[in-house]
């Protein structure tokens, strides 16, 4: 039984919520080798940023990813603020932080559900996503949108909170706070679930550091790497207290535990913010042109460290914007974890880093590489599809 063959997973596969392409060399039910191909989701954002003004860029970068939109916005806004030399007022800082934590809750609940689905536990998935509606409604109430909140801007946040909203937020947070331990508990006691996640996808501490993993993936391997502590932003550090959650399990179960506990920590942060919200303005005026300079801005997004490199050339358009979303940082460690794993563990190991492929693929513009038409109408697309399958021997 040393016969190996190559199993393609992707670009389209039920385990993948977004297109990417894996090639697994498998020997029966074991994975011998894994290879990765990105780029099915390119939208040319980095190039696009150079052609737009800063104000337009902030909304463009918000759309790098639907789930961590606020993290991207915060990261870009604070980087540009640093170049402009302005500081948001304290109330703005607190609301900025609140948005980040609300988004973290929404993302982690989403992830818990997806992880459940990947191991076939759809009931778990339905319950977590039902509870996620609570935080989605809160976000919609605060920002006016369920995704792509558009709250951050240069010099603060765009919308203020009123008393009624603070009350609703506190109620919603209390409801979620009562509910979250149930999932943590379930993840650690349901035998079939434990069987699927305990001891799966081992990433030892040294490997996590060596392969530059980020976010809950590395924290579940016992590394206390958190940008909120290392490079404090949005009031972390001095204004807002918080705790870092780490776990030494190094497996998928540890990642579930880290995320669940992180949610509990986030509830505390948000309650602190809402109880101690300073009075005053939420934003300061920002200039339209940014003085020449360069900076690196980092944010702890839900999936890990997010980094933007921004270079300004004195005009109202940036010279270079580089975005590195946490998923790209976690791919090398994912490939490491997949080697030697069971075939059945592919989805959950991949899901465990909470991959966001639209975050990862955003750099190139797919132009007309096939030559000719840029916009394909329905008939051309259909003809191409038929031709494509005929070449592979499938008769339509």
């Amino acid at each position, binding site marked *: 039984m040393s016969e190996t063959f190559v199993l393609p997973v992707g670009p389209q596969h039920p385990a993948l919520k977004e297109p990417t392409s894996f090639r697994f060399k498998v020997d029966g039910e074991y994975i011998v080798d894994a290879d990765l191909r990105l780029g099915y989701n390119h939208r040319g954002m980095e190039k696009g940023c150079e052609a737009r003004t800063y104000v337009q860029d902030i909304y463009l970068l918000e759309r790098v990813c639907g789930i961590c939109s606020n993290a991207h916005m915060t990261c870009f806004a604070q980087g540009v603020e640093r170049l402009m030399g302005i500081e948001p007022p304290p109330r703005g800082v607190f609301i900025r932080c609140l948005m980040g934590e609300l988004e973290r809750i929404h993302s982690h609940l989403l992830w818990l559900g997806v992880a459940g689905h990947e191991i076939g*536990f759809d009931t778990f998935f339905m319950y977590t996503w*039902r509870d996620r509606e609570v935080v989605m409604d809160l976000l919609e109430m605060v920002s006016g949108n369920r995704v792509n909140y558009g709250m951050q801007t240069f010099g603060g946040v765009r919308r203020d909170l009123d008393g009624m909203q603070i009350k609703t937020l506190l109620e919603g947070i209390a409801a979620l706070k009562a509910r979250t331990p149930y999932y943590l508990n379930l993840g650690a006691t349901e035998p079939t679930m434990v069987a699927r996640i305990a001891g799966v996808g081992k990433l030892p501490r040294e490997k996590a550091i060596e392969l530059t993993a980020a976010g809950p993936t590395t924290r579940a391997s016992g590394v206390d790497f958190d940008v909120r502590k290392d490079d404090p932003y949005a009031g972390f550090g001095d204004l807002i207290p918080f705790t870092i959650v780490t776990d030494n399990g190094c497996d998928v179960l540890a990642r579930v535990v880290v995320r669940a506990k992180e949610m509990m920590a986030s509830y505390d942060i948000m309650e602190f913010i809402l109880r101690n919200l300073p009075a005053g303005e939420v934003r300061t005026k920002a200039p339209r042109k940014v003085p020449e300079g360069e900076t690196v801005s980092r944010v702890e997004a839900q999936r890990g460290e997010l980094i933007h490199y921004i270079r300004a050339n004195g005009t109202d358009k940036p010279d270079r914007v580089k975005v590195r979303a946490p998923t790209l940082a976690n791919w090398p460690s994912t490939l490491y974890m997949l080697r030697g794993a069971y075939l059945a563990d592919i989805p959950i190991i991949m899901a465990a880093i909470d991959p966001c492929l639209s975050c990862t693929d955003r750099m190139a513009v797919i132009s007309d590489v096939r030559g000719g038409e840029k916009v394909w109408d329905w008939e051309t697309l259909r003809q191409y599809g038929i031709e494509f399958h005929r070449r592979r021997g499938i008769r339509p």
Partner: protein
Amino acid sequence: MDLLKVALYLLVYPGLLFLFVYSTFVEWVDRKLYARFQHRRGPLYTGRAGLLQPIADFVKLMAKEDIVPSSADKPLFNAVPVLALAAVLTSGLLLPVWHFTTGIVSATSFPGDIIVMAYLLSLPTFAYFLAGWASASMYASIGAVRVLTLLFSYEVPMFLAILSPAVMAGSWRMAEIARFYQLHPGYLPVNIIAFAVAILALQAKLERLPFDIPEAETELVGGTFTEYSGRKLALFRLLTDVQMVTGAGFLATLFLAGFPGGLVPGFLWFIAKTLFIVLILSAIRAVTARIRIDQMVNFSWSYLAPAALLQLVAVIIVKGYLP
């Protein structure tokens, strides 16, 4: 006259028509229960409370394009769904769901029909294997191998489990076994372990969570059915539903004392008891995650098979003290 009766058996009750209608109803019950367990609503719009949804799905699939991969083994690929469906439909005929008096031995009730029933219920598994193998697709082949591995792990516990009520009743005929427990309902709880094992084995046979390893959507796309579409997929889906009905009826006959009281009460008992088993199957599906194939093999050989053996020993001991 006899010919008409046979045609009635085969085509209307308990044959094709009844099984088709009832199995779609059971699928509706299963989907609705699963949805309500998950705090959802389930099918809603087709028919009253979505009752016709499974039929609508079936018709929709029948109308869809039917694709055969060019590298597939075409005759086998086409024949497998029909053969497998025929096997489970035949198994439906063996269920003692009419006023079968135990005295009359007929084509659908004879000594040893329990074994025939068990084998007919196993045939679809081989069909799944052949279907996956004939597809000549990577995912389907892995699914096919998993189907066989799964078969070897649940089939032995299943057979051991159905053996104990038969040994207890001292008969190899389903109608007689059911009759024995109708007369002595006190012996029903003796088989409780075998009942649990049989329920789990049936769940595995139906490839439902936590044992839907060969299909495993997130790993293998559609497992053995990856390449199937249109009519053939519709037949496969109908097959699973019918298998659920006959499997549930089989277990109800053996472990829940069958369906006494002539045509109408017997029919009502049949509905009630099969739905009870479907409720258990749905609940299992709702509260578990899919386990891995190696864990499944471990589980069945270290827990299921010994439990079934233990049950058999217990039954033999009880039987020894029987008056």
